[in-house]
């Protein structure tokens, strides 16, 4: 194992290979920070470039992109309330309020540091877990997937500050998640006879609408720059270094975020969005003095950012061990591997150990390099928050709508973004949680498909859900999540007495 690791490190240290890594990191940061583009698009675009490369060089380039994308995405989430990639959406909840208070430097510092450390921790977890990766992937059949979706939905709805509004937002998210062709039952639902809606609503234009466009509409109404702090000096004073310190001052948040990210990343098809939201809600529920979550608590930035870089280490497990992509980026990365004659599957872990270490090292260095770059640039980036909204709004909306179109070259996605822009604006005005809508949307198809598959497996007998250990564990975790508000209520009442 050590030989493979050293061989991989020596290969990566060659000048030309470091160049590929740097190129990957640069592309990753840019594509990550522009909503709608994201890592999957970057990998697909650079794929033809890799034809003439050694397979290992292609892996280094792609590793650079994957390691940098989510750090790039966190910058636009914090500064503009516009997640660059879907997993960055949870970072908006506390990152953007910090920007409005003139503490963008603090938030970016914390995000870049938490991302880097989370990424490193998850790679450590990956190295430890690789030998038992098979077993873990085999734990998750349709019944366990269904229960995992229920757990995700429950913990997020419970985390809403207003339970009723949280439930309504979740229902709206589920409704939009069910739009499209149901390929088990063979029926199309709510497609209004439009071909475009057959594959359902894509998450990226939905996020662009709910966050970027809605936020710009709200900013237009309010006027002025994003930062409500009049003192331009605040950006320098409450700076990046405090953000870095904040991460290490909250080791519990950092560790729980990384572990949640790595574990959820291992479950194929669930992806980083769920990982970062779960990590956020776990931190918001279990931290001490948590009344400031949602209004600009730096721990609300640390938790999701640690998780969304940590998920990459986890997502490599199903991708490498079985050829099942854990996320959109992994799906295209899988294509790159196969094009270069590396066939992910049960044999890969045994036959090409050094190739895997190469990827792990590329991801590791990409995370560190991109985190450092963002930290260095943070002070300048934070100035965006001081630009007048009337200059900022057209720029952000242009990039957002072009991003929505660029995703699938479909004009329909532009309309989807515009529709959710208006819906998001109404939700801001009426104080409904947009995040709960997003998570319900993401989980809806996972939950439905696996429920139907389970019921087909169980021949209609739903009691058989409880015959499987993984499902049972997830069921008790769901019960626990449900009991948290009750326990809190009892504790407050006891304290009052």
């Amino acid at each position: 194992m050590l030989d493979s690791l050293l061989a991989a490190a020596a290969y990566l240290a060659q000048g030309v290979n470091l160049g590929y890594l740097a190129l990957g990191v640069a592309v990753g940061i840019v594509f990550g920070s522009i909503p709608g583009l994201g890592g999957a698009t970057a990998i697909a675009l650079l794929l033809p470039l890799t034809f003439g490369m050694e397979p290992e060089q292609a892996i280094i380039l792609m590793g650079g992109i994957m390691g940098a994308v989510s750090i790039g995405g966190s910058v636009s989430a914090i500064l503009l309330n516009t997640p660059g990639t879907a997993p960055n959406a949870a970072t908006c909840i506390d990152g953007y309020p910090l920007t409005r208070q003139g503490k963008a430097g603090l938030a970016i510092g914390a995000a870049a540091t938490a991302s880097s450390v989370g990424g490193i921790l998850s790679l450590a977890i990956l190295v430890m877990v690789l030998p038992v990766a098979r077993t873990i992937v085999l734990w998750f059949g349709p019944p366990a997937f269904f229960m995992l979706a229920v757990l995700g939905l429950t913990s997020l709805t419970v985390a809403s500050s207003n339970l009723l509004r949280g439930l309504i937002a979740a229902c709206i998210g589920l409704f939009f998640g069910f739009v499209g062709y149901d390929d088990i039952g063979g029926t199309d639902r709510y497609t209004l006879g439009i071909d475009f809606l057959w594959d359902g609503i894509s998450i990226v234009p939905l996020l662009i609408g709910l966050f970027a466009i809605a936020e710009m509409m709200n900013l237009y109404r309010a006027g002025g720059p994003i930062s409500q702090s009049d003192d331009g000096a605040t950006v320098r004073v409450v700076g990046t270094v405090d953000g870095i310190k904040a991460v290490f001052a909250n080791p519990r948040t950092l560790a729980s975020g990384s572990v949640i990210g790595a574990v959820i990343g291992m479950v194929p098809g669930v992806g980083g969005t769920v990982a970062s939201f779960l990590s956020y809600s776990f931190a918001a529920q279990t931290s001490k003095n948590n009344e400031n979550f949602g209004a600009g608590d730096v721990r609300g930035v640390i938790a999701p950012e640690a998780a969304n870089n940590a998920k990459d280490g986890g997502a490599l497990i199903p991708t490498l061990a079985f050829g099942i992509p854990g996320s959109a980026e992994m799906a295209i990365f899988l294509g790159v591997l196969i094009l270069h004659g590396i066939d992910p599957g049960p044999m890969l872990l045994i036959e090409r150990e050094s190739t895997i270490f190469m990827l792990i090292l590329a991801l590791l260095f990409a995370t560190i390099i991109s985190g450092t770059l963002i930290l260095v640039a943070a002070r300048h980036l934070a100035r965006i928050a001081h630009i007048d909204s009337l200059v900022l709004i057209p720029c952000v909306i242009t990039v957002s709508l072009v991003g929505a179109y660029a995703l699938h070259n479909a004009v329909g996605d532009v309309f989807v973004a515009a529709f959710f822009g208006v819906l998001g604006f109404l939700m801001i005005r009426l104080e409904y949680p947009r995040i709960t809508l997003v998570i319900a949307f993401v989980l809806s198809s996972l939950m439905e498909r696996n429920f139907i598959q389970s019921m087909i497996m169980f021949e209609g007998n739903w009691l058989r859900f409880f015959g499987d250990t993984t499902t049972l564990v997830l069921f008790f975790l769901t019960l626990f999540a449900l009991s948290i508000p009750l326990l809190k209520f009892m504790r407050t009442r006891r304290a009052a007495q």
Partner: protein
Amino acid sequence: MSLGPLRLRCLILLTLALVACAPAADEATLDNATVSIVIPYRPGGGFDRTVRAFAPYFAKQLGDGVTVLPENVPGAGGRRGAATVYRARPDGKTLGIFNMPGFVPPEILGEKVDYDLRELSWIGRLESQDYVLLISATSELQDLQGVRAAAELAFLSTGYGSSVLAASQIVAGQLGLSDREPIYLAGYAGTADYLVGLIRGDGNVALGPVSTSLKYIESGDLRPLAVTGDGSSLPGVPTFTELGYPDLAALDLQRSIAGPPGMDAQLLVTLREAFLRAVADPEFIKTARNARLDLSPLDGAATAAEVAQSFTYYAAFKTNLTNPNAL
């Protein structure tokens, strides 16, 4: 700075934003040839991989200055991409890769589709692969006889409308299992997903494309029982024909390239000849081998005939092909 002009500028920029989102108009000139190959699925899958590997070699054979651009047009289970090619101008600049025979059953079952596969201008077949009937290595079943005698059978596959589910239904029908009402656990996201489901024990039998299944067979997780095709593509594994089910020999998966109907005869010849030269290019063959493509080239005329045959073949099994999980 006054707010008035800024507000105006804001609106002007917003208008520009909307204009930027409008799709670019078609190039009118034939000389400046950028040929798109429409992939009716999202990036990352097998069809995407095939086109991206093939595009540069096809461009080389089409002449200097010609660019071949893979273009993903996903939607409606591939139907949106297929309709895009069908409706395009037959000027040779829009071609597409087709999932055959996956696109055939919806047409046979009378579902509304915006294309007719038999009218397309077929340029050639790139890939073809047989199916293998698989069980888990830990399964109590031993052979095809065991499968036929099993008390409960659950076939794993991708969703309704996929080639694999249709093929599973045809296999079940031919093995005489239809009246035993096997379970069709459909809806998995991809081939690897349901094969891992088979290893896990979600169901007890599945039909897999040979090349994707091979790694699970080699790792000892899955056991092959029989293969489709005329000769066995897996050494030591009997064909369905050898086991007494010759009608199953024709079940396979093809990836073929076509252009819109009504293409000029000379243009079609040019495209077909470039296709044949590209698939014979030793460099492409090397790339294809590395990328694990199941290269099995066929010229345009033979591909058109194969498509027509698929219609006859699947029409004979029409009663087997209804959705087993319809609500």
